[in-house]
């Protein structure tokens, strides 16, 4: 545990390194030039929002199946992961629409990837509304976990659905443009470093929030025992 925490401190080096690599080391892309550098931020942020979503789902399943870990409180951890994921999802939408404006001219195109990120955003908003409405309820964790699992399992349906819907929507020939960007070695390495450093940032934030949770629980325990 301690070793992992010390490892997470590497973010203080990894993130500036990513920024410098993204702006200076990686070459500009063929079509978009320097504006393509947003790729090195947008892709890791989108990856983290997806990762946070999956982690909160897994924690919800573990919470409901009764697996007890350390202090319990897996539902709170799922909430923390969802909070981080929500922030990163909003950042994904913002960076994605800036990139869409630069490459395709419009801020929003409703292509499959954009649509799935909006679905995730809506699920997060609904989850937080539900948790907010259940603030003093002792069943808050279970109901929140149930909702997250339910919402999570409908997501693959949507992923299968969108290609079916796609012919009837406006055709977007540049849908996979970012795959077609010529990624030479420098760009690939920058992207990988970016993904790694943002994942470490997510783990660090998640760990900090969980530690605060543990401290809060201990304080409550002390308060109860002293009373």
């Amino acid at each position, binding site marked *: 545990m301690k070793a992992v925490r010390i490892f997470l401190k590497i*973010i*203080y080096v990894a*993130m*500036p390194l990513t*920024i*410098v690599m993204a*702006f*200076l*080391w990686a*070459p*500009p892309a*063929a079509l978009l*030039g*320097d504006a393509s550098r947003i790729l090195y931020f947008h892709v890791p942020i989108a990856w983290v929002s997806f990762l946070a979503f999956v982690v909160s789902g897994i924690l919800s399943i573990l919470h409901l199946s009764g697996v007890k870990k350390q202090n319990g409180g897996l539902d709170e951890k799922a909430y923390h992961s969802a909070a981080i994921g929500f922030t990163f999802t909003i950042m994904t939408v913002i960076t994605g629409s800036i990139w869409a404006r630069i490459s395709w001219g419009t801020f929003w195109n409703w292509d499959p990837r954009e649509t799935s990120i909006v679905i995730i955003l809506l699920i997060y908003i609904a989850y937080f509304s539900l948790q907010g409405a259940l603030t003093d309820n002792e069943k808050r964790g279970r109901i929140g976990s149930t909702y997250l699992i339910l919402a999570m399992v409908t997501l693959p349906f949507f992923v299968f659905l969108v290609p079916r819907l796609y012919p009837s929507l406006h055709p977007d020939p540049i849908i996979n443009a970012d795959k077609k960007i010529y990624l*030479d070695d*420098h760009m690939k390495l920058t992207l990988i470093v970016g993904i790694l450093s943002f994942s470490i940032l997510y783990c*660090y*934030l998640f760990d*900090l929030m969980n*530690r*605060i949770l*543990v*401290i809060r629980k*201990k*304080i409550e325990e*002390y*308060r109860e*025992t*002293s009373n």
Partner: protein
Amino acid sequence: MKRAIKIITLCALITFTIFWQTMSPGRPSRSCCTIAVPGLSVFAQETVTPSQVALPDMGRTAESSTVLYQVMAVVLVIWLGLGLFLFLIDRRITRLEQSMPDKQGNGSK
């Protein structure tokens, strides 16, 4: 919490001044940038690989690389603020965790 707000407002001020400088086109660049740009541009030129498609107009490269450095500086400043905030929180949490097992009742901190 107040410290965090101070840090974030400081970062916002710095980013605002840098943006203010970059947004006005006819403005002569500040001395720090004129010193930094030649130094950094040497570094940048070393990383140009043969596989990269060269931008046709070399006259625009200098200006675009200036903007690039300024944007990078802004992002670094933002990260500096965020990193400082995280570091301070981490330190505070570590202190709380270390003092925790010694606490009797609800000790104040």
